[in-house]
């Protein structure tokens, strides 16, 4: 009985789809995007928005991203990050403050 409740609630309430730039097309709701940060990074995360492109970690597809909010210390071109948001008009608009970097060492990942 408990198990059924758990399964139901986890599937119903739980995850946001976790995607790569190459698989973004067609998803209109809130998703979680994982990718490799490419140069150049322009703009102001605490102003009009930080602009950069994300590429598939193992691939070539890229997507432009605009992000506002706290930027983790480890963020820079050449790192893998995860950010939540929506894909609108060819640009991934991030939900403020949802960027997380993957830590290079195998211990605790950094977070905003």
């Amino acid at each position, binding site marked *: 009985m408990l198990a059924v409740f*758990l399964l139901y609630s*986890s599937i119903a309430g739980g*995850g946001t*789809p976790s995607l790569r730039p190459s698989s973004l097309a067609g998803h209109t709701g809130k998703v979680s995007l994982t990718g490799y940060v490419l140069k150049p990074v322009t703009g102001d995360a605490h102003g009009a928005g930080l602009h950069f492109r994300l590429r598939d970690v193992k691939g070539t597809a890229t997507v432009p991203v605009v992000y506002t909010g706290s*930027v983790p210390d480890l963020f820079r071109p050449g790192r893998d990050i995860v950010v939540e948001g929506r894909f609108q008009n060819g640009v991934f608009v991030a939900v403020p403050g949802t960027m997380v970097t993957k830590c290079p060492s195998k211990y605790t990942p950094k*977070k905003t």
Partner: protein
Amino acid sequence: MPELGRAALVVCFGLALYAVGAGFWGAHTRRRRLALSAQNALVAAFLSAAVAAGVLLVALITSDFSFTYVSAFTSRELPLTYKITALWGGQEGSLLLWLLVLTGYGAAAVLLDRKAGRELIAWVVPVLGVVAAFFSMLVVFVASPFATHAAPADGLGLNTSLQSPYMQAHPPLLYLGYVGLTVPFAFAMGALLSGRTDERWIVATRRWTLAAWMFLGIGQLLGAKWAYEEVGWGGYYAWDPVENAALMPWLAATAFLHSVMVQEKKGMLKVWNMLLVILAFSLSLFGTFLTRSGVLSSIHSFTEGSIGPWFLGFICFVVAGSLALLFRRLPLLRSKTKLESLVSREATFLYNNLLLVALCLTILWGVTFPILSEAVRGESVTVGRPYYDFFLRSFGLPLLLLMGIGPLVAWRRASLRSLGRTFLWPFAFGLVAGGGLVAAGAGSSLPGLIAYTFAAFVTATIVLEFARGTAARRALAGEPVPRAFASLVARNRRRYGGYVVHAAIVLLAIGVAGSSAYDTSHTARLAKGQSLKVRDYTLVYRDLRRTRAQNAVETRATIDVYRGGDRIAVMHPGKNNYPVEQQISNEVAIRSDWLTGEDLFLITEQVNPNGTIDFKAIINPLVNLIWLAGVVFLLGSVVTLWPDAREERRLAVRYGRLAPET
């Protein structure tokens, strides 16, 4: 020197294998000398592991970069204390530490726990040997800390986020917890294998389980403090899978600590206890597997790495083997007693267990669902904070309430009338507190309000327990209050130590509720002289300074903090730039108010070229109660662990070491 390390590890591996083979054979054919020999092998394995650890430690201290490990995790200007603790900063070294702690615990458990009986120990030794063999196999063949290469001029340095006293203490404490759970598991398997499923195995392992549980709890709190101060996003727990990896075995161990009390007093729940100890141990293995194998970043990096599949295989082996053994010995575990009433202390322990295990399993599901989903559908999902928060509230709040109800309910059955009388005062106190809290504005968050009210209720029950106990003691022995209190606790260490631990959990609950349900945050871009207002604090940005430290460039802003017109503090949030490691770290400034327990948390998000700074200010009410809870938790655990001479004697008589007194 690396050859000595490698040799020591090979010897350790050989000894572990011998302990397995000779141990099983000696126990099975009841050859005492063989069993003793296997036991010695386990102790010798510890000494070999110690030698290997010593070799690595010396290499780290002398910065011998011919060791691949040393060059990967230290550098010349790294302070000495970090060079030493880099022993567990990387995969291979931390596996070696695990092996050392494991063999250490194993040696200590079989040497010190003579009350457990030779027959039981004879079977425990090979089980410990199996686990030791696995880990020594890993460090010998798969992930050796003694790999060498042409020594570079300087090492790569330690990840800056690990350069903190918390991160130095966190892994060894956590390992003392994780690995410590091997001992009760080994004794449980020993009990099943030997057919001696009496209470002996529980009595022998009670202290080990409690100690491991204590270390695991403290280790997690240190990790949370590290996240709070060093990672600095304003929170202390992100429901990250590596954090959950430690929480899950802790929850299972908590359930186990409670349900063994039922087995001791009533002889019930024998099968359940076996299952719990298997669960706790498997989760501890699973936890370290999650943290190491890379399976969390993606399923593909897991299969590419070498360590993951080994761990997974071992976990499957352990789970399958122990369950099979349990199934075979099921007839030995039948209990005659049944649950008499749903309103009894046994029943509340059962509810407590169900809630704890349910919470544990929902966390497990949250952690493994993304991995499974990616493996099955090719598409991964992220399970976020809302999922975990929901279940923490759904299961945690009733648990909090039960903590107050349980101790007040009698064993076997309690009539509703007597319940009404015992609960009258705490219930009234809870109501009054709840009303007061609503008046003070706590109604803004319903879960927060409920948490606070339950916490008030539980506090009242704990205080009442101590008060009633002391009063009874005074009536009995005519002692003055302080002495009555002391002798009360001394005579009932487990009960009252347990109450202290409950008090710690109450503090934890209040701190967590306060800082997560009632926090505020504001961000602003300030130029010099401008101010930011948050709650009753006014923050004025005065100055920006850059200084050079040993291995970093430190940028610090000077912020004056005013409250009610008075300047109460000057804070210096900023950033550190580490040129060698090419990393920037956020150095947050925290001001703790000792009266209210709240924290003013300042983050410099971004230093802009025109001299303005984007600041984020967060108020975390009552967050310092969490750290206070850690201290109380430690105190309570120590009281509960403290040996009781009279109980020791009684058990020794029962298990035949001493002649019974007529």
